[in-house]
């Protein structure tokens, strides 16, 4: 079984803790001058997304988690699974709802995203920070109102609803920040 010594700890390293795959966010070396050394780490559980703090005795080895992050293309959803394809090997994998839950409202067929697998099964899908999506439904646009700062709801092709300025019309292509769910601007071809 692969493992890491605490002296290899750094941000992004994937460990197996209590049976769950985790990623190190922050590693702090703590040592009284003449005393025992420790590694105090902030870790994200990759299945639940929860962030926890753990302390290890320095020098200890911790089991590695076989976690891979791969850029893949979203293909389609058959009602029970979401399918992704590797752009070079054309290999396809299906992810369940738990894995796509945070990404699903921004997922458009053909778009690229990051699929995180653990022991070859997908555990999470991350969309790019910025995506471009078409407006499928919104109240008619108020032409010329680019300054008032007022907003209205708009439904996008993926089903997501975002607040947009009043001048936006159905059929407009918008740039959205997926981390905040906020409208950034109109997409210029």
């Amino acid at each position, binding site marked *: 079984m692969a493992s890491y010594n605490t002296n290899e700890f750094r941000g992004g390293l994937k460990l197996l803790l209590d049976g769950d795959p985790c990623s190190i966010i922050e590693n702090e*070396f*703590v*040592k009284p001058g*003449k005393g*025992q050394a420790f590694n105090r780490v902030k870790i994200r559980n990759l299945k639940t997304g929860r962030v926890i703090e753990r*302390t290890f*005795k320095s020098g200890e080895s911790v089991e590695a988690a076989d976690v891979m992050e791969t850029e893949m293309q979203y293909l389609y959803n058959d009602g029970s699974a979401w399918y992704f394809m590797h752009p070079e090997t054309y290999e396809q994998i299906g992810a369940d709802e738990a894995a796509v839950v945070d990404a699903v409202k921004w997922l458009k067929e053909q778009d690229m995203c990051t699929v995180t697998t653990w022991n070859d099964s997908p555990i999470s899908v991350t969309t790019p920070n910025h995506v471009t999506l078409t407006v499928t439904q919104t109240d008619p646009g108020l032409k010329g109102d680019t300054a008032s700062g007022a907003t209205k709801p708009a439904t996008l092709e993926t089903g997501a609803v975002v607040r947009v300025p009043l001048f936006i019309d159905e059929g407009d292509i918008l740039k959205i920040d997926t981390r905040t769910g906020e409208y950034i601007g109109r997409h210029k071809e």
Partner: protein
Amino acid sequence: MVDYETLIDSLPENWQPSASLGILKLRADKLRSTRAFFFDNGCLEVETPCLSNSIAAEQHIEPFKFTFQNEQYYLQTSPELAMKRLLASGSGAIYQLANVFRTAETGCLHNPEFKLLEWYQPDWTYVQLMQQVDEFVRLIIGTEIILQQTEYFSYQYVFQKYVNVDPFADSQARLVKAVHEAGVNLTGIALESRDQWLDLLFSHVIQPRLPKDTPVFIHEFPVSQAALAEIKESDNDKTPNVALRFELIINGIELANGFQELRNAKEQLRRFELVNENRIEQQQSPLDIDLKFIAALKQGLPKCAGVAVGFDRLMMLALNKENIQDVMAFAWQTK
């Protein structure tokens, strides 16, 4: 054959200093103030070797070592033993700005090579020395931090106050419970010794809770953590024997470690042997004991107090930097 064309196109980009030139100039000013302080106090600057074939045996400090002419050599983890050989030769008060080396120590407060400012005052008690450390540290920090009145807390007091345990009397199970109560989640192999649990509580819970912007001296350590300090025997059943050792902590940073220096050669030899026995038990290699140092003790070390200040950490406080790399010209880097 070296392909110079390829090599010159793929040179490392991170060749520049880790500290800014502005910081390095301020650091040079602080070094000058440090030397002036000791000159004004009649303390002689000395230089002892970085490289030696023996070393101070410590349980939790790992030296860099290598073989030269079939003999084991060490980069010094502290200038202490050589400086005490000078004291035993009649040097009087001495100080040194020594670069020292410790493996497996990297982080915001640790660099494998760092600078210790170490000094010794013959005929002083460690209480007098704490006061001089306070005076010196305040001088160097200057106006960067508005420091509050200095606190002097015993090791026992801070454990009772901040984690509600008696570090001398309470059972190991009670210490473990205090770790859990403080929300520290220790994962993996459990710690073996009482001192390790005390270290965990001290570093994770007590140190961050000490008063801010205040020099805090912690003194009177458990005898199991005496290292090279003299032991004060208790004269009653209620109080434990304690090591006359102190540490200075400012804003969570351990800045100095000092002793009323142990002068008994046989006792010192016994402690080094004990460290080596523990090291073997923990699968660490034993270290070559400096018998010339033991010989110096046998001949007679003057009654004295000594202290080592982490100079780079002092620069972090004095120059308001959060990473030790920001105050060193070239911090440790992997290739």
